[in-house]
Protein backbone atom coordinates (compact mmCIF):
# COMPACT_ATOMS: atom_id res chain seq x y z
CA UNK A 1 0.00 0.00 0.00
CA UNK A 2 1.28 3.48 -0.95
CA UNK A 3 -0.18 6.59 0.61
CA UNK A 4 0.16 10.24 -0.32
CA UNK A 5 0.31 12.48 2.77
CA UNK A 6 -0.54 16.18 2.77
CA UNK A 7 0.15 18.53 5.67
CA UNK A 8 -1.14 22.12 5.68
CA UNK A 9 -2.10 22.87 9.28
CA UNK A 10 0.06 25.96 9.80
CA UNK A 11 3.08 27.52 8.08
CA UNK A 12 4.46 24.52 6.21
CA UNK A 13 3.15 22.76 3.13
CA UNK A 14 4.37 19.16 3.34
CA UNK A 15 3.77 16.37 0.85
CA UNK A 16 5.16 12.85 1.05
CA UNK A 17 4.59 9.31 -0.19
CA UNK A 18 4.94 6.40 2.22
CA UNK A 19 4.94 2.79 1.18
CA UNK A 20 4.10 -0.04 3.53
CA UNK A 21 6.74 -2.25 1.89
CA UNK A 22 9.44 0.25 1.01
CA UNK A 23 9.11 3.01 3.58
CA UNK A 24 9.36 6.68 2.69
CA UNK A 25 9.49 7.19 -1.08
CA UNK A 26 9.26 10.97 -1.34
CA UNK A 27 9.26 13.98 0.94
CA UNK A 28 8.65 17.55 -0.26
CA UNK A 29 8.33 20.64 1.88
CA UNK A 30 7.69 24.30 1.35
CA UNK A 31 8.08 26.56 4.36
CA UNK A 32 6.30 29.88 4.64
CA UNK A 33 8.42 30.93 7.58
CA UNK A 34 10.35 33.37 5.43
CA UNK A 35 7.15 34.83 4.02
CA UNK A 36 5.83 35.39 7.54
CA UNK A 37 9.17 36.72 8.73
CA UNK A 38 8.95 39.37 6.00
CA UNK A 39 5.60 40.40 7.42
CA UNK A 40 6.76 40.08 11.01
CA UNK A 41 4.07 37.61 11.95
CA UNK A 42 1.84 34.82 10.75
CA UNK A 43 -0.73 35.79 8.16
CA UNK A 44 -3.49 33.22 8.28
CA UNK A 45 -5.10 34.03 4.94
CA UNK A 46 -1.79 34.41 3.14
CA UNK A 47 -0.90 31.05 4.65
CA UNK A 48 -4.04 29.46 3.14
CA UNK A 49 -3.45 31.04 -0.25
CA UNK A 50 0.12 29.86 -0.20
CA UNK A 51 -0.94 26.30 0.64
CA UNK A 52 -3.31 26.41 -2.34
CA UNK A 53 -0.48 27.56 -4.59
CA UNK A 54 2.13 25.11 -3.32
CA UNK A 55 0.28 21.85 -2.68
CA UNK A 56 -0.27 20.66 -6.27
CA UNK A 57 3.29 21.39 -7.47
CA UNK A 58 4.61 19.61 -4.37
CA UNK A 59 2.42 16.57 -5.13
CA UNK A 60 3.80 16.50 -8.67
CA UNK A 61 7.33 16.82 -7.31
CA UNK A 62 6.72 14.00 -4.82
CA UNK A 63 5.37 11.66 -7.51
CA UNK A 64 8.38 12.48 -9.66
CA UNK A 65 10.78 11.93 -6.76
CA UNK A 66 9.24 8.50 -6.13
CA UNK A 67 9.07 7.83 -9.86
CA UNK A 68 5.38 7.00 -9.57
CA UNK A 69 2.16 8.01 -11.27
CA UNK A 70 -1.00 8.76 -9.31
CA UNK A 71 -2.37 5.39 -10.42
CA UNK A 72 0.31 3.77 -8.23
CA UNK A 73 -1.22 5.33 -5.10
CA UNK A 74 -3.66 3.49 -2.83
CA UNK A 75 -4.93 6.34 -0.72
CA UNK A 76 -4.59 9.96 0.33
CA UNK A 77 -4.08 11.15 3.90
CA UNK A 78 -4.28 14.76 4.94
CA UNK A 79 -4.11 16.80 8.12
CA UNK A 80 -7.69 17.42 9.16
CA UNK A 81 -6.86 19.23 12.39
CA UNK A 82 -6.04 20.81 14.75
CA UNK A 83 -4.65 24.03 13.29
CA UNK A 84 -5.59 27.25 11.55
CA UNK A 85 -8.95 26.72 9.88
CA UNK A 86 -8.11 28.35 6.53
CA UNK A 87 -4.86 26.45 6.23
CA UNK A 88 -6.58 23.15 7.11
CA UNK A 89 -9.37 23.77 4.61
CA UNK A 90 -6.87 24.36 1.81
CA UNK A 91 -5.27 20.94 2.36
CA UNK A 92 -8.56 19.18 3.08
CA UNK A 93 -10.23 20.44 -0.10
CA UNK A 94 -7.30 19.54 -2.31
CA UNK A 95 -6.79 16.11 -0.74
CA UNK A 96 -10.46 15.16 -0.62
CA UNK A 97 -11.06 16.30 -4.22
CA UNK A 98 -7.98 14.57 -5.62
CA UNK A 99 -8.94 11.35 -3.89
CA UNK A 100 -12.41 11.58 -5.47
CA UNK A 101 -10.99 12.32 -8.93
CA UNK A 102 -8.43 9.52 -8.67
CA UNK A 103 -10.99 7.13 -7.11
CA UNK A 104 -8.89 6.62 -3.99
CA UNK A 105 -9.92 6.38 -0.35
CA UNK A 106 -9.15 9.46 1.77
CA UNK A 107 -8.46 9.71 5.48
CA UNK A 108 -8.15 12.71 7.80
CA UNK A 109 -5.16 12.59 10.13
CA UNK A 110 -4.78 14.28 13.50
CA UNK A 111 -1.74 16.55 13.30
CA UNK A 112 -0.43 15.59 16.74
CA UNK A 113 -0.88 11.88 16.01
CA UNK A 114 1.33 12.50 13.00
CA UNK A 115 3.96 14.06 15.26
CA UNK A 116 3.92 11.33 17.86
CA UNK A 117 4.29 8.65 15.19
CA UNK A 118 7.08 10.52 13.37
CA UNK A 119 9.88 8.45 15.04
CA UNK A 120 8.35 5.45 13.18
CA UNK A 121 9.85 6.94 10.01
CA UNK A 122 13.34 6.20 11.37
CA UNK A 123 15.36 2.99 11.45
CA UNK A 124 15.36 2.88 15.26
CA UNK A 125 11.69 3.03 16.11
CA UNK A 126 9.92 2.52 19.42
CA UNK A 127 7.64 -0.39 20.11
CA UNK A 128 4.26 0.21 21.73
CA UNK A 129 3.49 1.17 24.41
CA UNK A 130 5.48 4.36 24.93
CA UNK A 131 5.29 7.73 26.56
CA UNK A 132 5.23 10.71 24.18
CA UNK A 133 6.18 14.27 24.95
CA UNK A 134 4.81 16.56 22.24
CA UNK A 135 6.43 19.97 22.36
CA UNK A 136 5.99 22.66 19.73
CA UNK A 137 5.01 26.29 19.30
CA UNK A 138 1.34 25.50 19.75
CA UNK A 139 1.31 22.39 21.94
CA UNK A 140 2.88 20.92 25.05
CA UNK A 141 1.45 17.55 25.95
CA UNK A 142 2.39 14.33 27.71
CA UNK A 143 0.61 11.34 26.20
CA UNK A 144 0.59 7.67 27.14
CA UNK A 145 0.46 5.78 23.84
CA UNK A 146 -0.83 2.22 24.09
CA UNK A 147 -1.20 1.79 20.35
CA UNK A 148 -2.15 3.91 17.35
CA UNK A 149 -5.31 5.77 18.31
CA UNK A 150 -5.13 4.75 21.97
CA UNK A 151 -3.97 7.88 23.67
CA UNK A 152 -4.30 9.08 27.21
CA UNK A 153 -3.37 12.70 27.87
CA UNK A 154 -1.43 12.70 31.14
CA UNK A 155 -0.62 16.38 31.21
CA UNK A 156 -0.53 19.55 29.13
CA UNK A 157 0.39 23.19 29.37
CA UNK A 158 -2.07 25.28 31.31
CA UNK A 159 -0.89 28.48 29.59
CA UNK A 160 1.96 28.97 27.08
CA UNK A 161 3.30 26.10 24.98
CA UNK A 162 7.02 25.34 25.44
CA UNK A 163 7.89 26.56 21.95
CA UNK A 164 5.84 29.70 22.48
CA UNK A 165 7.82 30.43 25.66
CA UNK A 166 11.04 29.99 23.64
CA UNK A 167 9.81 32.34 20.92
CA UNK A 168 8.54 35.01 23.30
CA UNK A 169 11.63 34.94 25.50
CA UNK A 170 13.71 35.26 22.34
CA UNK A 171 11.65 38.33 21.45
CA UNK A 172 12.29 39.77 24.93
CA UNK A 173 15.99 39.26 24.25
CA UNK A 174 15.63 41.32 21.08
CA UNK A 175 15.67 38.38 18.65
CA UNK A 176 13.27 38.19 15.70
CA UNK A 177 9.98 36.33 16.25
CA UNK A 178 9.86 33.30 16.18
CA UNK A 179 13.36 33.07 17.60
CA UNK A 180 13.33 29.85 19.66
CA UNK A 181 16.09 28.12 17.68
CA UNK A 182 18.17 31.33 17.71
CA UNK A 183 17.80 31.55 21.50
CA UNK A 184 19.16 28.00 21.79
CA UNK A 185 22.09 29.08 19.63
CA UNK A 186 23.07 32.07 21.77
CA UNK A 187 22.56 29.96 24.90
CA UNK A 188 25.68 28.00 23.90
CA UNK A 189 27.68 31.17 24.71
CA UNK A 190 26.02 31.54 28.13
CA UNK A 191 27.77 31.45 31.50
CA UNK A 192 26.75 28.45 33.54
CA UNK A 193 25.18 29.38 36.87
CA UNK A 194 24.92 33.17 36.51
CA UNK A 195 21.14 33.08 36.56
CA UNK A 196 18.80 30.48 37.97
CA UNK A 197 15.26 30.34 36.59
CA UNK A 198 12.47 28.48 38.40
CA UNK A 199 11.28 25.03 37.29
CA UNK A 200 7.55 25.75 37.15
CA UNK A 201 5.10 23.29 38.68
CA UNK A 202 7.76 20.70 39.50
CA UNK A 203 7.33 21.18 43.25
CA UNK A 204 3.81 19.82 43.24
CA UNK A 205 2.36 16.54 41.99
CA UNK A 206 0.88 16.22 38.52
CA UNK A 207 2.03 16.29 34.94
CA UNK A 208 0.72 19.64 33.73
CA UNK A 209 3.10 22.35 32.56
CA UNK A 210 3.15 26.12 32.90
CA UNK A 211 5.67 28.19 30.95
CA UNK A 212 4.15 31.65 31.10
CA UNK A 213 5.96 32.48 34.35
CA UNK A 214 9.38 31.78 32.81
CA UNK A 215 8.76 34.45 30.21
CA UNK A 216 7.88 36.88 32.99
CA UNK A 217 10.97 35.83 34.94
CA UNK A 218 13.06 36.53 31.83
CA UNK A 219 11.44 39.96 31.42
CA UNK A 220 12.16 40.81 35.07
CA UNK A 221 15.75 39.61 34.76
CA UNK A 222 16.33 41.71 31.64
CA UNK A 223 14.85 44.75 33.38
CA UNK A 224 17.26 44.27 36.29
CA UNK A 225 20.41 43.12 34.55
CA UNK A 226 20.29 44.86 31.19
CA UNK A 227 20.68 43.11 27.88
CA UNK A 228 24.29 43.34 26.74
CA UNK A 229 25.34 40.40 24.58
CA UNK A 230 26.82 38.32 27.41
CA UNK A 231 23.80 38.90 29.66
CA UNK A 232 21.54 37.91 26.76
CA UNK A 233 23.45 34.67 26.35
CA UNK A 234 23.39 34.01 30.11
CA UNK A 235 19.64 34.57 30.28
CA UNK A 236 19.10 32.39 27.20
CA UNK A 237 21.09 29.59 28.82
CA UNK A 238 19.29 29.84 32.18
CA UNK A 239 15.93 29.91 30.40
CA UNK A 240 16.74 26.92 28.20
CA UNK A 241 18.02 24.93 31.19
CA UNK A 242 14.81 25.68 33.07
CA UNK A 243 12.55 24.52 30.21
CA UNK A 244 14.61 21.39 29.55
CA UNK A 245 14.82 20.49 33.27
CA UNK A 246 11.09 21.00 33.68
CA UNK A 247 10.28 18.80 30.69
CA UNK A 248 12.75 16.15 31.92
CA UNK A 249 11.36 16.14 35.48
CA UNK A 250 7.83 15.67 34.16
CA UNK A 251 8.90 12.94 31.76
CA UNK A 252 10.60 11.05 34.58
CA UNK A 253 7.52 11.40 36.73
CA UNK A 254 5.26 10.16 33.90
CA UNK A 255 7.56 7.22 33.19
CA UNK A 256 7.45 6.19 36.84
CA UNK A 257 3.70 6.60 36.95
CA UNK A 258 3.06 4.56 33.79
CA UNK A 259 5.99 2.15 34.34
CA UNK A 260 7.00 2.73 30.74
CA UNK A 261 10.56 2.43 29.46
CA UNK A 262 10.33 4.11 26.08
CA UNK A 263 10.06 7.85 25.62
CA UNK A 264 9.24 9.58 22.34
CA UNK A 265 9.80 13.31 21.90
CA UNK A 266 8.29 15.04 18.91
CA UNK A 267 7.31 18.48 17.66
CA UNK A 268 9.55 21.47 16.86
CA UNK A 269 11.06 21.77 20.36
CA UNK A 270 12.17 18.11 20.19
CA UNK A 271 14.90 19.31 17.81
CA UNK A 272 16.48 21.15 20.75
CA UNK A 273 19.94 19.70 21.33
CA UNK A 274 20.03 20.23 25.10
CA UNK A 275 16.66 18.49 25.50
CA UNK A 276 17.77 15.50 23.44
CA UNK A 277 21.04 15.12 25.31
CA UNK A 278 19.54 15.49 28.76
CA UNK A 279 16.74 13.01 28.05
CA UNK A 280 19.20 10.52 26.55
CA UNK A 281 21.27 10.61 29.76
CA UNK A 282 18.14 10.34 31.90
CA UNK A 283 16.75 7.39 29.95
CA UNK A 284 20.03 5.55 30.16
CA UNK A 285 19.94 5.88 33.95
CA UNK A 286 16.37 4.59 33.93
CA UNK A 287 17.34 1.63 31.71
CA UNK A 288 15.10 2.97 28.99
CA UNK A 289 15.51 4.70 25.67
CA UNK A 290 14.55 7.97 24.07
CA UNK A 291 13.33 8.14 20.48
CA UNK A 292 12.98 11.13 18.23
CA UNK A 293 12.64 11.76 14.52
CA UNK A 294 15.36 13.39 12.39
CA UNK A 295 15.27 17.18 12.63
CA UNK A 296 13.35 17.56 9.35
CA UNK A 297 10.51 15.46 10.80
CA UNK A 298 10.41 17.25 14.19
CA UNK A 299 8.73 20.20 12.52
CA UNK A 300 5.62 19.89 10.35
CA UNK A 301 5.96 17.55 7.38
CA UNK A 302 3.94 15.34 5.05
CA UNK A 303 5.80 12.12 5.85
CA UNK A 304 4.31 11.73 9.33
CA UNK A 305 0.83 12.33 7.87
CA UNK A 306 1.37 9.71 5.15
CA UNK A 307 2.60 7.24 7.80
CA UNK A 308 -0.31 7.79 10.19
CA UNK A 309 -2.78 7.82 7.29
CA UNK A 310 -1.47 4.52 5.97
CA UNK A 311 -2.09 2.86 9.33
CA UNK A 312 -5.65 4.17 9.42
CA UNK A 313 -6.42 3.35 5.77
CA UNK A 314 -5.12 -0.18 6.31
CA UNK A 315 -7.54 -0.50 9.18
CA UNK A 316 -10.32 0.46 6.78
CA UNK A 317 -10.89 3.95 8.13
CA UNK A 318 -11.94 6.33 5.38
CA UNK A 319 -13.83 9.59 5.06
CA UNK A 320 -17.01 10.34 3.18
CA UNK A 321 -17.03 12.99 0.45
CA UNK A 322 -17.61 15.99 2.70
CA UNK A 323 -14.72 18.42 3.04
CA UNK A 324 -14.36 19.00 6.76
CA UNK A 325 -11.60 20.61 8.83
CA UNK A 326 -11.35 20.24 12.60
CA UNK A 327 -9.43 23.24 13.99
CA UNK A 328 -10.02 21.94 17.53
CA UNK A 329 -9.73 18.19 17.87
CA UNK A 330 -8.69 16.59 21.17
CA UNK A 331 -6.24 13.75 20.47
CA UNK A 332 -7.92 11.45 22.98
CA UNK A 333 -11.10 11.49 20.84
CA UNK A 334 -9.42 9.55 18.05
CA UNK A 335 -10.69 6.05 17.32
CA UNK A 336 -8.36 3.07 17.81
CA UNK A 337 -7.32 1.10 14.75
Amino acid sequence: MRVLGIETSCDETGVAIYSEAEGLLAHQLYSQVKLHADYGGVVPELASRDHIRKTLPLIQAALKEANLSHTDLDGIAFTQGPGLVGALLAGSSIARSLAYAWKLPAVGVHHMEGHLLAPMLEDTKPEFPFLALLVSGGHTMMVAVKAIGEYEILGESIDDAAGEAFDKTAKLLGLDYPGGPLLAKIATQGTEGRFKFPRPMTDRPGLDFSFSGLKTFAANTIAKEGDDLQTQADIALAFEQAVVDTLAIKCKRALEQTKMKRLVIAGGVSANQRLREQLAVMMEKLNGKVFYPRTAFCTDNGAMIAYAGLARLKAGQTLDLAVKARPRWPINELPPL
Partner: protein
Amino acid sequence: MKFEKYLENETATVALGKQLSSACQSGIVIFLYGDLGAGKTTLSRGFIQGLGHVGAVKSPTYTLVEPYDIQGLQIYHFDLYRLADPDELEFMGIRDYFEPGNLCLLEWPDKGGDLIPQPDLMVTMNYQGEKRVADIEAKTARGLEVIKKLN
Protein backbone atom coordinates in the same frame (compact mmCIF):
# COMPACT_ATOMS: atom_id res chain seq x y z
CA MET B 1 -12.83 57.47 35.11
CA LYS B 2 -10.05 55.13 36.12
CA PHE B 3 -9.27 52.31 38.48
CA GLU B 4 -5.71 51.56 39.45
CA LYS B 5 -4.39 48.54 41.28
CA TYR B 6 -0.95 47.58 42.48
CA LEU B 7 -0.30 43.88 41.93
CA GLU B 8 2.13 42.17 44.26
CA ASN B 9 2.33 38.89 42.35
CA GLU B 10 0.60 36.50 39.96
CA THR B 11 -2.06 35.61 42.52
CA ALA B 12 -3.00 39.27 42.79
CA THR B 13 -3.25 39.54 39.00
CA VAL B 14 -5.58 36.51 38.87
CA ALA B 15 -7.63 37.99 41.72
CA LEU B 16 -8.04 41.28 39.86
CA GLY B 17 -9.20 39.35 36.79
CA LYS B 18 -11.84 37.64 38.94
CA GLN B 19 -12.90 40.93 40.50
CA LEU B 20 -13.19 42.49 37.06
CA SER B 21 -15.32 39.61 35.75
CA SER B 22 -17.74 39.88 38.64
CA ALA B 23 -18.19 43.59 37.90
CA CYS B 24 -18.90 42.98 34.19
CA GLN B 25 -22.27 42.41 32.61
CA SER B 26 -22.42 40.47 29.37
CA GLY B 27 -21.65 42.26 26.13
CA ILE B 28 -18.40 43.91 26.98
CA VAL B 29 -15.19 44.44 25.01
CA ILE B 30 -11.93 44.74 26.95
CA PHE B 31 -8.59 45.71 25.43
CA LEU B 32 -5.47 44.51 27.24
CA TYR B 33 -2.22 46.41 26.82
CA GLY B 34 1.23 45.63 28.19
CA ASP B 35 4.57 44.19 27.21
CA LEU B 36 5.33 40.49 26.93
CA GLY B 37 5.23 38.98 30.40
CA ALA B 38 3.27 41.87 31.95
CA GLY B 39 0.37 39.62 32.93
CA LYS B 40 -2.30 40.06 30.23
CA THR B 41 -2.96 36.36 29.87
CA THR B 42 -2.79 35.87 33.65
CA LEU B 43 -5.42 38.57 34.17
CA SER B 44 -7.52 36.93 31.44
CA ARG B 45 -7.22 33.60 33.25
CA GLY B 46 -8.65 35.16 36.42
CA PHE B 47 -11.40 36.82 34.39
CA ILE B 48 -12.46 33.67 32.52
CA GLN B 49 -12.24 31.41 35.57
CA GLY B 50 -14.12 34.05 37.55
CA LEU B 51 -17.01 33.61 35.13
CA GLY B 52 -17.13 29.93 36.00
CA HIS B 53 -14.74 28.29 33.56
CA VAL B 54 -13.08 25.26 35.11
CA GLY B 55 -9.71 24.26 33.74
CA ALA B 56 -6.83 25.86 31.92
CA VAL B 57 -6.88 29.17 30.11
CA LYS B 58 -4.35 28.60 27.37
CA SER B 59 -2.44 31.34 25.67
CA PRO B 60 -4.32 32.23 22.48
CA THR B 61 -1.12 33.37 20.73
CA TYR B 62 -0.92 30.33 18.47
CA THR B 63 -4.61 30.02 17.62
CA LEU B 64 -5.32 33.81 17.62
CA VAL B 65 -8.55 33.19 19.56
CA GLU B 66 -9.68 30.75 22.25
CA PRO B 67 -13.44 30.44 22.69
CA TYR B 68 -15.22 29.59 25.94
CA ASP B 69 -18.87 28.68 26.36
CA ILE B 70 -19.88 29.09 29.97
CA GLN B 71 -23.51 28.10 30.41
CA GLY B 72 -24.50 29.73 27.13
CA LEU B 73 -22.36 32.80 27.68
CA GLN B 74 -19.81 33.22 24.87
CA ILE B 75 -16.38 34.46 25.84
CA TYR B 76 -13.64 35.06 23.30
CA HIS B 77 -10.03 35.54 24.33
CA PHE B 78 -8.00 37.00 21.47
CA ASP B 79 -4.29 37.51 21.04
CA LEU B 80 -3.46 39.47 17.91
CA TYR B 81 0.29 39.35 18.61
CA ARG B 82 1.15 37.20 15.60
CA LEU B 83 -1.08 39.07 13.21
CA ALA B 84 0.80 40.93 10.50
CA ASP B 85 -2.08 42.72 8.77
CA PRO B 86 -5.45 43.74 10.30
CA ASP B 87 -7.19 42.71 7.04
CA GLU B 88 -6.41 39.14 7.98
CA LEU B 89 -9.10 39.41 10.64
CA GLU B 90 -11.79 39.57 7.94
CA PHE B 91 -10.78 36.10 6.82
CA MET B 92 -11.22 34.59 10.26
CA GLY B 93 -14.73 36.07 10.39
CA ILE B 94 -13.85 38.59 13.07
CA ARG B 95 -17.21 40.39 12.97
CA ASP B 96 -19.08 37.29 14.11
CA TYR B 97 -17.21 37.26 17.39
CA PHE B 98 -18.50 40.65 18.48
CA GLU B 99 -22.21 39.82 18.70
CA PRO B 100 -23.95 41.83 21.41
CA GLY B 101 -23.92 39.79 24.59
CA ASN B 102 -20.51 38.22 24.02
CA LEU B 103 -17.57 38.98 26.29
CA CYS B 104 -14.40 39.73 24.37
CA LEU B 105 -10.89 40.10 25.75
CA LEU B 106 -8.25 41.27 23.29
CA GLU B 107 -4.51 41.18 23.84
CA TRP B 108 -2.39 43.29 21.45
CA PRO B 109 -5.50 45.08 20.12
CA ASP B 110 -3.40 47.68 18.27
CA LYS B 111 -2.61 44.97 15.72
CA GLY B 112 -6.32 44.78 14.86
CA GLY B 113 -6.62 48.22 13.24
CA ASP B 114 -10.15 49.41 12.47
CA LEU B 115 -11.59 45.93 12.17
CA ILE B 116 -12.25 45.50 15.86
CA PRO B 117 -14.86 47.50 17.77
CA GLN B 118 -14.07 50.24 20.26
CA PRO B 119 -13.46 48.87 23.76
CA ASP B 120 -15.65 49.48 26.80
CA LEU B 121 -12.60 49.11 29.00
CA MET B 122 -8.89 49.51 28.45
CA VAL B 123 -6.61 47.62 30.82
CA THR B 124 -2.93 48.49 30.82
CA MET B 125 -0.45 46.30 32.67
CA ASN B 126 2.81 48.01 33.57
CA TYR B 127 6.00 46.69 35.06
CA GLN B 128 7.09 48.17 38.37
CA GLY B 129 10.23 46.21 39.13
CA GLU B 130 9.01 42.65 39.61
CA LYS B 131 5.55 43.84 40.56
CA ARG B 132 2.84 45.12 38.25
CA VAL B 133 0.41 48.00 38.16
CA ALA B 134 -2.90 47.60 36.37
CA ASP B 135 -4.72 50.66 35.03
CA ILE B 136 -8.32 50.19 34.03
CA GLU B 137 -9.96 52.97 32.08
CA ALA B 138 -13.59 53.27 30.98
CA LYS B 139 -14.23 54.18 27.35
CA THR B 140 -18.04 53.87 27.28
CA ALA B 141 -20.98 54.25 29.65
CA ARG B 142 -21.00 50.49 30.04
CA GLY B 143 -17.33 50.57 30.97
CA LEU B 144 -18.02 53.33 33.46
CA GLU B 145 -20.52 51.11 35.29
CA VAL B 146 -17.79 48.50 35.72
CA ILE B 147 -15.28 51.01 37.10
CA LYS B 148 -17.87 52.28 39.58
CA LYS B 149 -18.37 48.74 40.86
CA LEU B 150 -14.61 48.21 41.14
CA ASN B 151 -14.17 51.41 43.12
